[in-house]
């Protein structure tokens, strides 16, 4: 399997065999249910999905919170309604069928994984925080109240406009973010728990996608 859906629980630290302190994040992932398999082959009814992928579902929800179209979708897969559905592009899926589960055991301790999530919203931020500008750089030499200013916006009378894409202050965070190459430190399948090194995007309780 290419990955699973989980939930960020929070961070803590552990110490490795060299007594080194490692910050780590806990990800909770109940076995994900396969709800649909998409294939680029032409099926019996003469239709094709055009690509190979596996759709996984995670996190129980109540029947009455489920819309009828989705309820039918889950029923077809023979499972209870779930909150989060994610598709994983995946080629080798002969052995898979809807209703099967995929859990944290697809990873191994020592693996490197990528984690995708929605980063925490930071609100309206200036260019120093948002784009890593250095600000004007000093308080002296006649400067005042410009320390975190963006500086020049570009050329003047020609072209008499700001180029599109100019990095400015604005809303920051709340974007889909991927953190790559996090080491899997620990897996506890009976608790559906995955521990990865470092930090991952999102708040506690946020959905994250762990990719192999």
């Amino acid at each position, binding site marked *: 399997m290419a990955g699973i859906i989980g939930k960020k629980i929070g961070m803590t630290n552990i110490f490795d065999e060299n007594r080194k302190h490692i910050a780590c994040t*806990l990800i909770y992932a109940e076995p994900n249910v396969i709800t649909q398999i998409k294939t680029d082959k032409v099926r019996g009814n003469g239709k094709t999905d055009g690509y190979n992928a596996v759709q996984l579902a995670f996190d129980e929800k109540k029947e009455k919170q489920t819309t009828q179209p989705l309820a039918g979708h889950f029923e077809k897969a023979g499972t209870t309604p779930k909150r989060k559905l994610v598709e994983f592009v995946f080629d080798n899926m002969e052995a898979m069928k809807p209703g099967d589960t995929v859990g944290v055991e697809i990873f191994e301790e020592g693996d490197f994984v990528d984690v995708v999530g929605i980063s925490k919203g930071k609100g309206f931020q200036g260019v120093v925080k948002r784009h890593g500008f250095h600000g004007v750089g000093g308080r002296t030499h006649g400067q005042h109240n410009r320390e975190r200013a963006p500086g020049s916006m570009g050329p003047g009378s020609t072209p008499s406009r700001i180029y599109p894409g100019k990095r400015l202050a604005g809303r920051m965070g709340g974007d889909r973010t991927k953190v790559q190459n996090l080491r899997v430190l620990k897996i506890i399948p009976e608790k559906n728990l995955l521990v990865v090194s470092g930090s991952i995007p999102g708040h506690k309780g946020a959905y994250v996608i762990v990719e192999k």
Partner: protein
Amino acid sequence: MEDLIKLIEAPFLRKDTPSFRAGDTVNVYVKIIEGNKERIQQFRGVCIQRKGAGATETFTVRKISGGIGVERIFPLHSPSVEKIEVLKRGRVRRARLFYLRDKIGKDARIREDESGRA
């Protein structure tokens, strides 16, 4: 959810740490690796804060070394900390003693706590 964090932390928590708090004078025995040899170094000073909870808890020790203030932050549960010895209980009125940074000599003393607190 919270208990999952405790579950991961549990094997790393040490039970042999003495009870101490900001204001106490402590002696920390730190394991240090030099080349391929390991030895123990002592760091003695006043604990000026304890911070965090669970496996992430740390404490800061401040001492005056050669006339210069030195602070070192130790993770309370670090395996590198061989032993923590409490030398003196101090009577202080706050949890973070950052005001000690601005005091020198006699002003930086802390009254001893004689209440017999453990």
